[in-house]
């Protein structure tokens, strides 16, 4: 079996990108069937998703409250006795639905690699150091304006085994709930200007550049604090809420 190189993967990415632009139909979400991401080959449905109108519990979301989340869980830099290595940063933004309404008092979960690009997870065994002062897991509840806020360390890029010499752009995983179950989503936030974007099949599985840009945080100097932390802003829009009576199906 020949080794799959970045050149091979980049050629596949380009072929799909060319097809997308020829077709001229805007897409806004990742493709489930995206062969440059090899793990997706046997894990994507081959049948079209089936249209369903949300009903019963689907029109509601699970509720989380103060008893679920300690406010200290939003600071990933204070979970241990010492300060973690790396660039301390604040990431904050608003979570709104498709009609612009804030998602209030709802759970946000994040997880990420440390500054060296290493996850605590036992399956990550690449030779970058673990940081005894960094676990890389955080939670918070949004406030009444839909705003979340975490203090953490800027994660590093890391190698993976999709192909030879494959590296993921630095990212933070976000797990999000809305005001109804159909808005549940998990995604990844990226950093501006990452040189690995063009090479990464997971980022590129979103075929539209405007849609990709929605996953990239903005550096915000007004959030940066003197001699303490840099600041990034990233707002999140969940799929449209169905509380309005005249919503039409667009499947």
């Amino acid at each position, binding site marked *: 079996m020949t080794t799959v190189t970045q050149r091979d993967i980049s050629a596949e990415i380009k072929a799909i990108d060319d097809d997308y632009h020829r077709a001229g139909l805007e897409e*806004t*979400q*990742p493709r*489930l069937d995206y062969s440059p*991401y090899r793990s*997706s080959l*046997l*894990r*994507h*449905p*081959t*049948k079209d*998703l*089936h*249209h*369903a*109108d*949300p009903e*019963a*519990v689907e029109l509601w979301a*699970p509720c*989380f409250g*103060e008893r*679920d989340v300690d406010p200290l869980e939003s600071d990933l830099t204070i979970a241990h006795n010492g300060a973690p290595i790396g660039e301390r940063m604040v990431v904050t933004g608003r979570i*709104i639905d*498709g*009609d*612009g309404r804030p998602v209030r008092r709802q*759970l946000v*979960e*994040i*997880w990420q*690699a440390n500054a060296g690009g290493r996850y605590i*997870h036992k399956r990550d065994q690449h030779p970058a150091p673990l940081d005894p002062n960094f*676990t890389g*897991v955080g*939670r918070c509840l949004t406030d009444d304006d839909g705003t979340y806020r975490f203090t953490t360390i800027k994660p590093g890029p890391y190698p993976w085994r999709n192909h030879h010499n494959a590296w993921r752009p630095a990212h933070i*995983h976000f*797990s999000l709930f809305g005001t109804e*179950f*159909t808005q*549940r*989503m*998990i*995604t990844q936030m990226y950093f501006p200007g990452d040189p690995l974007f063009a090479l990464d099949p*997971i980022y590129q599985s*979103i075929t539209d550049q405007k*849609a990709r840009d*929605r*996953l990239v945080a903005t550096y915000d100097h007004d959030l940066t604090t003197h001699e303490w932390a840099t600041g990034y802003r990233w707002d*999140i*829009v*969940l*799929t*449209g809420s*169905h509380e*309005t009576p005249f*919503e*039409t*199906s667009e499947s």
Partner: protein
Amino acid sequence: MSTLIATPGQTIGPFFGYALPFDHDSELVPPGSPGAIRLHGVVTDGEGVPVPDALLEIWQADADGVVPTATGSLHRDGWTFTGWGRASTDRDGRYCFTTVKPGATQAGSAPFFAVTVFARGLLNRLFTRAYLPGDELASEPLLASLPDERRHTLIAVADEHGLRFDIRLQGDGETVFLRFPGHHR
């Protein structure tokens, strides 16, 4: 109609295992409590191979058909039914929840568990429903809209301790996954 375009999803990746699971995450009620059932199954890929790095979430009404509004899913007190749970698959692709059978939220409607599936290799979450087996299913509109050979993929099967609901991401017997209004490609 929604005016804003939703932020794209991305795969949950391989490393959620130290972040998203929590104590009693899959126990919506304590095992062995009155009315408790096991909802379990296997997640498989397009070659029928178990998927050991998937995460499932369920969201459901209580036994009386009431949609819970109680908080406390992340720190369960053993008494409050919050209706939401999370389960990782094991090395054999198996997942297991301890819960109660949801009641009908309206007279005559068919009760179901709302299910979300995440996995490494799955670039965005998938939604589905696990219906309880029963007579109400004959008139259920979503099931009626499906071809005969696919309908069974949304119906849990009764077994010794409760219900079995397998999820096939691809191929023979592929589970029906749902697209809700406002979910764009």
